[in-house]
């Protein structure tokens, strides 16, 4: 097997706030291969976006990437790079597509200028060259009359068009990796379908790796080949996408899949995960999902679970891997017995 494009080992990104140390990303490790689409799924506060920002070293104080964390990309450790070197990677070798296309664009420049700027900064292209390339990329992302649109300002474009502009910008330097952080969450469902199709298409054409970050399991199922599930700052499960949906191992993954209403499935009540995500300043000891889990037992409080190997290229951070029979005897989660967050 060839070396992965990006290799993250024991990434810890902590925020030193007045309320205490928020351990938002707390020992995350994973790899992305060349040309692969890896999904990270999880709910608000699980650390998925902070992981993405850490890869680009966009963490601002009071946050910092803790010593000992490693982010290896094309043979270099991003964590220890100088400012000059990291700027050379950002937007060039790794680019990012953000959730909110309006706030990611500068309102006082035309979209063409903003897309062209990427090539002027990173490839030293002339104004004319960069503009032509920008128009070419805008056309590639399916913007009709790209030449005309390039001369417009962000407010003159619809949300879907703005997201295409951001994608064009991300593709300008044909990066090795694109990080897409909830790229379709702010869009309507028919526009979301257009954008997802576009991303999948472009990836086939250009061969870029994509890190797809989302809370939407539907988006995961349709765009990724391998998935990481994050909960409370940690990776709790990793598997190939088919395997994850067919045989979720971690009770959190299981709960997440079953709590979604599915079109075409008649069900009177939705399954729920009771309770809420704990605060990052105060992760519970032992297993962080223990209070909300229907299978937890003494071991889960006593010992923080490691990532168990539970299948081929399938890992799960749940002690049930060593006592699988407990899955047949679910109990009322502790959080419900305590009388909070009732289902």
């Amino acid at each position, binding site marked *: 097997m060839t070396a992965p494009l990006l290799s993250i080992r024991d990434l810890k990104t902590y925020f030193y706030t007045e309320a205490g140390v928020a351990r938002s990303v707390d020992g995350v490790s994973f790899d992305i291969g060349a040309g692969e689409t890896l999904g990270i799924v999880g709910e608000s506060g699980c650390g998925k976006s902070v992981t993405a920002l850490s890869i680009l070293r966009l963490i601002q104080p009071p946050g910092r990437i803790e010593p000992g964390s490693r982010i290896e990309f094309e043979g270099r450790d991003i964590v220890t790079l100088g400012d000059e070197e990291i700027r050379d990677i950002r937007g060039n070798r790794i680019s990012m597509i953000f959730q909110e296309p309006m706030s990611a664009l500068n309102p006082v420049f035309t979209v063409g200028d903003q897309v062209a700027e990427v090539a002027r900064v990173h490839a030293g292209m002339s104004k004319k060259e960069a503009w032509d390339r920008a128009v070419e990329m805008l056309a590639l992302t399916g913007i009709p009359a790209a030449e005309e649109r390039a001369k417009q300002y962000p407010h003159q474009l619809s949300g879907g068009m703005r997201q295409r502009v951001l994608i064009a910008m991300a593709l300008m330097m044909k990066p090795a990796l694109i990080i897409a952080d909830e790229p379709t969450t702010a869009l309507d469902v028919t526009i979301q379908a257009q954008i997802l199709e576009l991303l999948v298409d472009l990836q086939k054409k250009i061969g870029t790796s994509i890190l797809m970050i989302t*809370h939407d399991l*539907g988006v995961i199922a349709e765009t990724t080949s391998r998935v990481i599930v994050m909960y409370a700052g940690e990776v709790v499960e990793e598997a190939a996408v088919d395997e994850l949906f067919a045989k979720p191992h971690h009770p959190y993954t299981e709960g*997440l899949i079953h709590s979604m209403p599915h079109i075409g499935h008649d069900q009177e009540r939705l399954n729920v995960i009771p309770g809420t995500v704990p605060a990052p300043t105060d992760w519970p000891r032992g297993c962080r999902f223990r209070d909300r889990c229907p299978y937890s037992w003494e071991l889960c409080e006593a010992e923080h679970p490691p990532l168990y190997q539970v299948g081929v290229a399938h890992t799960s951070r749940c002690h049930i891997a060593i006592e699988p029979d407990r899955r047949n005897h679910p109990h009322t989660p502790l959080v419900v017995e305590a009388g909070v967050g009732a289902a």
Partner: protein
Amino acid sequence: MNDTQPLVSVRNLKKSFPIKKGVFAREVGAVQAVNDVSFDVARGETLGVVGESGCGKTTTGRTILRLIEPTSGEITFEGRDVRSMGTSELRALRREMQIIFQDPVSSLNPRMTVGSIIREGLTIHHLAEGAAADARVRQLLQEVGLRPEYATRYPHEFSGGQRQRIGIARALSVEPKFIVCDEPVSALDVSVQAQVINLLVDLQHEHDLTYLFIAHDLSVIEHIADRVAVMYLGKVVELATRDDLYREPLMPYTQALLSAVPVADPKARKDRIILQGDVPSPANPPSGCVFHPRCHHPAKDEACSRIVPPLEEKAPGHFAACIKQPPTTISWEQQKQAGGVHPPERYLPLAAVHA
């Protein structure tokens, strides 16, 4: 009052917002946010209203409560004309009709305790005072799955899902018959969303509530609604029972909308109808059928851009606004006169049928 009478009835509802320009705020046009919408909501049912941003679903919900004054049309609640009500009548009516908002942060006053937020309605409507009101607040909190002692805390101390429960307790406090739920779960995480949906379903059974449930998420609507109205550019383009709508969507827009939802199953069939372009501006909607520029119906032709399709019954209880989906009251002769070249034909793309 008989039981067959709908609880809420809306007829030809219109709401336009003026577009103003220049120093003198001259009116230069109008946005037709809601354009000739009619429907009934039966007692005890949940009518889902689904559509994309700017389709007019929220404005529709708010005009029913007269939180936004409609431009024209009729709204009746238990046979009473809502539009002609004066201030005191309207206040009394608001005891019977409540709303739950999308954003659980901005819809709760950060300076008020949870207890006083919930108590406010009790005081305004003279339902309870003093110790009785305190007891009622505690009971309401329990009913929505929160601890009674939370009454003394402030909204910022709660998570999004808990705040939405507080909003629900506030709506329930005045014992309403009808609640407009305006995207009540779209700001919430998936696992919390399921908790709140289950709570709303349980409360409906316990209190005989009638819901107008507004959402952009088709899977949430399928789960909670008995009947569904699909809106596009200010109009209801399809209205049917949930089962009919999801099994056999007739309006091409509904078909595309259903097929666009990402399916959380990697093995699922992936063919889908990808609509071209964006939703046009409601300030300048297309002529004829508002959906025609993006429509994929094989019989689409010139007539679609000239004839405004009526919302008509295509099958028992299944209404759709499409002159190309038979049966239609717009005869083939009329369509030909309007430039039509393709006679209506039944079109049910496989991609639209999930079940």
